[in-house]
Structures are given as structure tokens and as C-alpha cells.
């Protein structure tokens, strides 16, 4: 019986000149079957959508300089440009409000409230160094309309489903966009070990082979 298998697909560096669905078709079509789910890294989807900016092109406001100080160093918004890009994407008053409530929530022991309130783009922003060259010198926002992207991938490749995911080496996996009928938590679990690899491996597409069969088997059990 066919087993669930993760198959990374190597591509050239994708840029804002590329259409992500065209590129997935070009590099992965021959390996994708009707039982498979195609997953793609959200930062690469965002890059192909041109959702990148250089720190040098951002005008930093006073509030960004202050608020970035309250984000732990590991977070992308801890740099003044990460914070400014979040403010540009979600509005600076929303970010201020989210940070104040987040700090209060932390006092009573609840973490993650800031990112819950700061808007969908805030947790998806990658600061400089977050992606592969030549985009290592850019900030990358989250993708636009990730669900529609997933649906289009599914339609074009005739696969069981598609998912746009934000995965890193810190064992964090988040489904950003998903085609109809798939279970996001299950896919996040499958992708938790970051099969996309690091930037230099250039494998922004991962085919989850035999997903439909494995899902049916799990339901029967």
C-alpha cells in the first residue's frame, strides 16, 4: 500500500518575474499524481508576487523605532524595519494596540496575543536574512490571497489538494492558505520537520505523495 512520502522539488531561484503556479507546473508536474498534495513555501509565493521591500526603501516612523524594542530579538519585528513593514501592512495603530494588549496578556501568562491581534501579515513578515540570496537583503511580506493560490495550484495540476505553508527549522509550521477539503492541522504536522530545507537547498515545493490514500486509511482506523 502506498505510503505517505515527502518529495522536495528543486527549482531555480524564483523571482517576481515568475508566476508561482507556472513554476510549480514546470518543475513538479511530472511527479504530481491525483492522490498528492502540493505544498509551497509562503515566502517564495510572496516573492513571486513582488511582496518584498528593501530596508533602504522604507521610511521609518518614530513609533516603529520604539515598538521594535519590545519584540524579543528572535522575532522578525524586532528590527526597526521589520516593525515598520508590519505597520505599513497592518496599520501602525493596530500594531500599537496589539502590542499593548499583548504585553498585558503576557503579564497574566498568555503568550502570542500580539500576533493574534496584529493582523495576518505580522507573523508572516521575514526580516533581512530570512530568505535566500538575492532576497537576503530584503524584507518579505506574507503572500496575497494564499487560499486562491492553493486552489489554482490544485486546479492546474489536478492533484488532491495544495497548501501554502510557513515552515521553519524551529519546528514551527503554519498553514497560510489551503485548498478546499484539506485539514490544515494535519498538514502542519506533516510539514513540521521543514522538508523545504534551508534557503540554499532551493526546494520551495514539496509534494506530499499519497496524501489522499493515507488520509482515507487514517479515517478507517
Amino acid at each position: 500500500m502506498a505510503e505517505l512520502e515527502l518529495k522536495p522539488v528543486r527549482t531555480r531561484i524564483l523571482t517576481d518575474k515568475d508566476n508561482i503556479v507556472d513554476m510549480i507546473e514546470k518543475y513538479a508536474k511530472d511527479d504530481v499524481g491525483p492522490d498528492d498534495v502540493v505544498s509551497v513555501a509562503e515566502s517564495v509565493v510572496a516573492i513571486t508576487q513582488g511582496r518584498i521591500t528593501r530596508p533602504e526603501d522604507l521610511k521609518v516612523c518614530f513609533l516603529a523605532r520604539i515598538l521594535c524594542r519590545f519584540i524579543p530579538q528572535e522575532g522578525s519585528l524586532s528590527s526597526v524595519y521589520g516593525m515598520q513593514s508590519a505597520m505599513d501592512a497592518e496599520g501602525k495603530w493596530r500594531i500599537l494596540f496589539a502590542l499593548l494588549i499583548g504585553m498585558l496578556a503576557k503579564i497574566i501568562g498568555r503568550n502570542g496575543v500580539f500576533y493574534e491581534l496584529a493582523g495576518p501579515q505580522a507573523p508572516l513578515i521575514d526580516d533581512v536574512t530570512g530568505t535566500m540570496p538575492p532576497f537576503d537583503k530584503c524584507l518579505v511580506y506574507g503572500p496575497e490571497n494564499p487560499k486562491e493560490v492553493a486552489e489554482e495550484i490544485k486546479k492546474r495540476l489536478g492533484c488532491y489538494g495544495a497548501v501554502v505553508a510557513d515552515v521553519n527549522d524551529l519546528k514551527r509550521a503554519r498553514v497560510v492558505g489551503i485548498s478546499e477539503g484539506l485539514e490544515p492541522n494535519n498538514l502542519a504536522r506533516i510539514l513540521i520537520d521543514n522538508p523545504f530545507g534551508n534557503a540554499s537547498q532551493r526546494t520551495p515545493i514539496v509534494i506530499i505523495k499519497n496524501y489522499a490514500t493515507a488520509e482515507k486509511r487514517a479515517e478507517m482506523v
Partner: protein
Amino acid sequence: MEFLITILLVALVVAIAIWLFIARQGDAEFEFLVDQRTDFALEELTEKTATFSCKVPFINKGTQGGTIMDAYPRHLLPHEQFDGVEVSSRLELLSAPPRTDNYFESVIILAGEGDTVAVTVKFTAKEGSIEEALGQMAELTVDMAIDIVYQIVARTPWYIHKTRMIMKCTEIMNAMQTKSAAK
């Protein structure tokens, strides 16, 4: 009136508290330790070219992590000073996989940590052999300044900083002689 004064006082206290928090938190602070660099060593010698390299450590001596977005060497040998060679230079992070494209990939350096870069300088003789050209350079006691230029981004907006080191003509000749002796 009392209410207004209270509001102003609270705002003042909050502003001072934030200022103290930021001051205490600090920021990244990078230093290229050119006084701890190795001597230039001759890496490659041909009839027309000589390539030297040295290692320069650097450290983030600040209290916050920071990112080196870009770094490159800027050699300064104006023809008014010496016109016998053409110079090219490049810089590489030693802990990163070797590159041949002279591209510096952005790197995060945590507070208190550091790394080492290799600075490579290639001289090409405009006329005659490189050994003759570098010999003339030494005769004229021409030392060459090299600025390590680096762009930093951290908690504060990006800035570009330069640290100067001097590639002395005596160091070049020593490296040439060491290589000859080794041969």
C-alpha cells in the same frame, strides 16, 4: 487642572521609563578587529598577477543581535601614488560556504559573538611582470589602505561603517619572499 497635570505627569513617567528601558537594552555594535588580523600571505603568483589574503576577526560587542547586510573591501591605491598595478579585492565570511561571486550573504551575529572574514587582494601588473611592479611599489614605500565597509541593521536604522587597515609594502614583499623561500 489637577487632572490635566496628573495626565502630563503620567505621560512623562511613561516616557522616561521607555527611554530607560531602551537605554538599558542597548543595540548591536560591530567592530572589525584589524589590529588582530593575520599578515597578508601570498595565495597565487603568475607572471602578471599576485593574489594575497589575510584574515580579519570581527565581533558584535553590543548587547543586542545585529545583521551585517553587506560587507566589502574598498582598496585605495590612486594612480597619483602608484600607477604600476591594477587592484581588485573581495571579502568572504569564513564560516559560510565558499563563494566565487563576491556576494556577501546577510548574516545575523548575536550579542557577544563574532566571526572572521578573509580579505583577498589581487594585483595585476600594467606592464612587465608583477614581481617587478610590486618591487617598484616597495621601492617607493607605497602602502595601500583598505577600508572594510559594512552595512548594519539592528534595533536602529541601518548605517554603513568603515574600518581601515593598511596593507604595507613591506608586508607584500615579506609574503613574496616567504613564498619564494618555501619553493
